[in-house]
């Protein structure tokens, strides 16, 4: 009973806040509402016994990713209200069409079995012993060890790549020399 009540409360909160993310005029308000969505979904995870997932959701998404969004908003000063006129006319109808297709897909899939082949979302949580964290750790470091390690290498490569690219653009090249004065344009 309490599960149902919490589900509807959190689902309503998540949907309302998600609408707010799109409709809010101020990007900082949008980011805050996004955090509300993420936390509401984390609560739903806790109700489903997926405590680890809830913690990771809050730490990674609310604690790191949205903070980075906020950083960008604050440092680049884009917190003025954006103009809503669209240079590419076709974008808006295309977005609506794709949204409708995605919604239909989700509604179609919920009536059928899961794409991963699992019968239900809880899957591995229902069988086996030990706590939530233990079971996730076991499957991560036995069955899925190879994809896990490959993902780690991929992420490291991405980080190093971005550092290399960011530092290269910092070096003064001939393009950066201002023709009129002959002085080097300072790096951004």
């Amino acid at each position, binding site marked *: 009973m309490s599960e149902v009540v919490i589900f509807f409360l959190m689902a309503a909160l998540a949907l309302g806040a998600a609408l707010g993310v799109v409709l809010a005029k101020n990007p900082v308000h949008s980011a805050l509402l996004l955090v509300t969505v993420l936390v509401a979904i984390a609560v739903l995870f806790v109700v489903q016994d997926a405590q*680890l997932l809830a*913690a990771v959701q*809050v730490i990674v998404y609310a*604690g790191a990713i949205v*903070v980075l969004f*906020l*950083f960008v908003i604050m440092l680049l000063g884009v917190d003025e209200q954006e103009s809503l006129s669209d240079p590419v006319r076709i974008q808006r109808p295309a977005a609506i069409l794709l949204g409708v297709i995605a919604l239909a897909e989700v509604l179609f899939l919920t009536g059928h079995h899961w794409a991963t082949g699992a019968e239900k979302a809880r899957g591995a949580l229902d069988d086996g012993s030990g706590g*939530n964290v233990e079971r996730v750790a076991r499957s991560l470091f036995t069955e899925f060890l190879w994809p896990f390690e490959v993902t780690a290498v991929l992420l490291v490569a991405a980080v190093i790549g971005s550092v290399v690219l960011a530092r290269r653009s910092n070096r003064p090249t001939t393009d950066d020399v201002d023709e009129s004065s002959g002085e080097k344009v300072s790096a951004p």
Partner: protein
Amino acid sequence: MRLLAAGDPLFADGLDFGIVLIVIVKTVVTFALLLVLVLFYIWFMRKVIADMQNRIGPARAGGRFGILQTLADGIKLFFKEQSVPDSADPFVFRLAPYLSIIPAFLAFSIIPIGGEVSMFGHETYLQLADPEIGVLFLLAMSGIGLYGVMLAGWASGSKYPLLGSVRASAQMLSYEAAFGLAVVAVLLHAGTLSTRGIVNAQAWTSWDSFATSWYWTVAVVSFAIFLVAAIAETNHPPFDLVEAEQELVGGFVTEYTGMRFAIFFLAEFMNLITMSAIAVTLFLGGPSGPALGFLPADGTVNVWLMPVFWFFAKLLFLLFCTVWVRASLPRLRYDQLMDLGWKWLIELAFLAVMVTAVVLVGRDEGWNRWVVVPASIAGAVAVLGALRLCMPKRSELVEEEA
């Protein structure tokens, strides 16, 4: 559905009115305890620093030791006018203090304050909640607490608070990595995330348990990193660049007045106390300590009182150390802060985790520990040296920028 407090034996067989009542009592007591701790910590801090600087310190309110000074300050702030600047974002400006204080309180709820006791006929832990995800909950809460600081600076709509909050959030993000990695070494030893499980793994069994059972000896590098990162994470001196008066006026709290300012102040000290309590839990055995031998082992004193006494004794020791640091060290420069966090603490914490993992695998496999431990430490030092050699020197960096 299991609640966040699932580990507690209180919830073993269903809920009834009595259990709900116990939880409510525990919540109120924990909240009051944290508030009183903050009140006395601030008084204690002012008194100790005054002593170290040959001053008298607070001596008026509440007798000749000025013990009620903080309470008087709090009441004064409570009755002051609260203003909202014209250029502020009014809703976020009002919201930010609560985003700061609620996570600070929630993080304290996972601290084991005492042992397992019997309350109104129910067995329960002397701790508000014992979630399975334990320490991760703390990390999640410090992640949410960041929003309070960040949004306070942004919503004030003026320059110094914004600079202060960008500094604060950059600092907290940077040190969160080192902080998390320092915790990992303890988690590897204990094999659980639950704070109760970690404390139980450090139980007092013989007179030398303080060195053999508590984790501060086997994870001494992580302990040191943890203490530095925890002070930096809570923005306390010598890492209080957030409110460097001569550069930023008051940092992100510049535009705040009255009770809203007091809430930020409270949250900051709550975080410091929570971090010290977490250090006690992870590295110093939490409530574990010798019982009084001449009293019965299952009597009220040894079950209720002694674990609580040991917890507070250790907490007081660490809190004294924070005051000591505050009184003795000058504030770091911003580049020193970032160098320390990114170039030293994260590396060292990583290597400490790896050495711990190797030693633990060696123990499970029955390898000779007199070979495994020195070899893994030597390997870690070699990696550290190689990394140092790869890093460009400061003079080269300065040259490149110029």
